[in-house]
């Protein structure tokens, strides 16, 4: 098992490396000037030149690249240009917010998507199934930001049920503030999951082993909940893994609209401010997150799926 995980990590390394390089070089082609971003338009050329020099933007690019990679290796993403704080520190303080949002969205998505998917598959071709599928269809068609706006208008503006901003102080408040943003992400994820669970269930229902189970005299309940469900949920893990990037993309917009602190809004801010180190930090973290989640997904997939369980 350990060998499998190590191999899996080693496979992930080139991906990481390529991604990090893409990040670095695509950032270098951004126009705009971090110094200008800091000082604003009302700064003289002299002052700007001085600041650029102070920020070490005059080292050759390849050297910056080497420093960058070496930095990442040490867990050091440099200092933010706009705040001057170590990027790792900033990320540390902000990461939990995004994590909460992602987990919240994931939970909502699973809670909505999996049971509805099962229900829809069991009641295949009934009115209930059609209704659920139609709703899911609408769900996957929503751009996340538009859903966020709608939720805000409805649950925050019209009926003042949930806050429209911020993250809250205490744990309960955190949860309270998390409701709308995670619903936004969760509903969309839920719709995706629902469709997947449904088709996966239907696939499995037609498998030979289900016939075997029935031939044993197993009741329909046992057939569905023991035999079919387990096998249809195994691939769902992979879907969740694949959707993690989508979830993070959605988080960027959701965080922006709900004025939540988070990696996404920080990255967007960093793009605008040409804060390369911060943006690099955020992207590197995203990469690690995505690669890491996929790693975990692969490993857990191999754990729950005895067929490919590595010896």
């Amino acid at each position, binding site marked *: 098992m350990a060998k499998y995980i190590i191999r899996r990590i080693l496979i992930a390394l080139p991906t990481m490396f390529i991604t990090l390089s893409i990040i670095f070089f695509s950032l270098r082609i951004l*126009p*705009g*000037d971090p110094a*200008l*971003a*800091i*000082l*604003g*338009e*009302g*700064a*003289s*050329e*002299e*002052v700007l*030149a*001085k*600041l650029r020099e*102070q920020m070490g933007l005059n080292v050759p690019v390849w050297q910056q690249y080497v420093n960058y990679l070496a930095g990442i290796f040490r867990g050091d993403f440099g*200092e933010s240009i*706009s*705040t*001057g*704080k170590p990027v790792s520190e*900033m990320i540390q*303080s*902000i990461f939990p*917010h995004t994590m909460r949002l992602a987990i919240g969205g994931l939970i909502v998505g699973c809670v909505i998507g999996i049971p509805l998917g099962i229900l829809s598959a069991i009641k295949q071709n009934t009115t209930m199934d059609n209704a659920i599928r139609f709703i899911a269809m609408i769900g996957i068609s929503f751009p996340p930001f538009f859903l966020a706006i709608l939720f*805000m208008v409805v649950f*925050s*503006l019209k009926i*003042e049920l949930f*806050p*429209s*901003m*911020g*993250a*809250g*102080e*205490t744990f309960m*408040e955190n949860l309270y503030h998390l409701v709308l943003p995670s619903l936004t992400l969760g509903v969309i994820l839920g719709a995706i999951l629902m469709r997947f669970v449904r088709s996966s269930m239907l696939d499995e229902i037609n498998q030979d082993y289900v016939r075997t189970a029935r031939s044993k005299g197993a009741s329909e309940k046992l057939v569905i909940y023991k035999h079919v469900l387990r096998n249809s949920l195994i691939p769902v893990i992979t879907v969740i893994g694949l959707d993690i990037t989508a979830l993070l993309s959605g988080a960027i917009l959701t965080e*922006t*609209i*709900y*004025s939540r*602190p*988070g990696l996404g*809004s*920080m990255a967007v*801010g960093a*793009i*605008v*401010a*040409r804060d390369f180190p911060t943006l690099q930090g955020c992207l590197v973290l995203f990469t690690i997150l995505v690669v890491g989640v996929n790693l975990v997904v692969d490993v857990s997939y191999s754990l729950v799926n005895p067929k490919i369980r590595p010896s």
Partner: protein
Amino acid sequence: QTSKPAEGGSNSVQSQEKVLKIASFGDFETADPHFNTITTADEVVRESIYNGLVRFKPGSTKAEDIEADLAEKWENNKEGTIWTFHLRKGVKWHQGYGDFTSADVKWSYERVMNPETASPASLHTRSIAKIETPDDYTVVFHLKQADPTFLLRLVANGNGPGKIVKKEAVEAAGKDYKFKPVGTGPFIFKEHRIREKVVLEKNPDYFRGEPKLNHVEIYAMKEQPTVDVAMDKGDIHMTIGIGDELWMNNRRKNKDVVLDYSRHPLFWFLHLNTSMKPYDDIRVRKAIAHAINSKGFVEQVMGLDLAKVPTSTITSNLFGHADIGIYEYNPELSKKLLAEAGYPNGITLPQNNASSSPTSLNKMTWVQEQLRTSGIELPMTVVDSNTNSANNRKNLNGLILQGFPARPHADFLLTPYFHGASIIGKPTGYANLAHYEKSDALIDQARVEMDPEKAKSIYVQIQQQIKDEYVMVPLAETYIPLVRRKEVQLGYDMTAIPTTIYLVTENTDLVP
């Protein structure tokens, strides 16, 4: 010591803990007063933490309303080259940094003047020759030449070198100073949570008396509707508004909310880049100028509460302003001029950038449409504001929207925007994107003229000169709409403020 959760409604203020919550568009960036930004969060922090020698009386931005701050009184010699300030005694620095003395003033100004610091405020300290501290409570500034605007430059509010910092604190914090500010003001910097909020705590030893608020919290927000909603619910107490009549009318409907205007105008104008084709042709510039109906924009879009039609090529509240009128809106003339310039079928201007920030994008969209109806196509690429600035600096744009909040003296606008030394690309380059240099001599002359009347007459000439050259098109003078919940008592009369957000003073209070 964290704030209470917002309960919604107006009873969010508890009797013991008074927490004022301010919404800021964008996160807090720096509390170093010598690196100015106009993010709401930064402004609130700077204005509440620091003092200067002199300040505008809260609620005003008139030159007459300059009042003592850390200086008790001051005088200057007749030539206007030596300025002596007598300091207030017994002022304490935050966080146990001891008493405030003249050495702090000297060190502060020298910090700005030092090119190593690279402070943009150094523009305002160029005339200083040397600073002397005869004793702990006296500071003497020796100027290289007469400067009638010297006192205005020192005013502590808004952008400028005026805020006094503590040497030991700056040195101790090093690079981190922007998050570890130490001042003498009514509030003390407590904490910053990235992308979430900044928390300020009252300074019980403030020399003007103990502040009434316990805490000030500034939240980083992104979208206007979110802030509106939060304000309606009482989660936010004050913020900056949208310069749009419809929005303001809507806000007025909510009785819990008070709408104020800071009548310190922001001057919006278009710079026409004369170094670029076809803007080098004055007939094209004229055609552009006459195609734009500033009046319609001001009256119908901004609303007269909020904006007024400019009356000259500089802002109306500036010393030196004269009502010389702006270009007439005349599309026919405009077309004729184009034909004269060799474009009988209209002209397509070169690709132009526009900043994606809503306040400038909506103006540029309007300009684009105005030009289109007169046969001038303005192809526009929307870029983020940073790219836009960078491209401006690289002289890539022909038609540039400028928005300028000036201290009340013509020189604050003319030198950076219309003086040849400020042309982009020069080492001293600033914001002269028009590449205009015809008025350099006059601007230099007026800057040192101690006689107000003489100075005024020179400024009239300059305004006319600029107008005749068609290097800029005035669009509007807008006030800043500000909103607060009615339980917020500002503690001063609000007519104009030098910042883009309310000042929070020791007298500001929350009264349910």
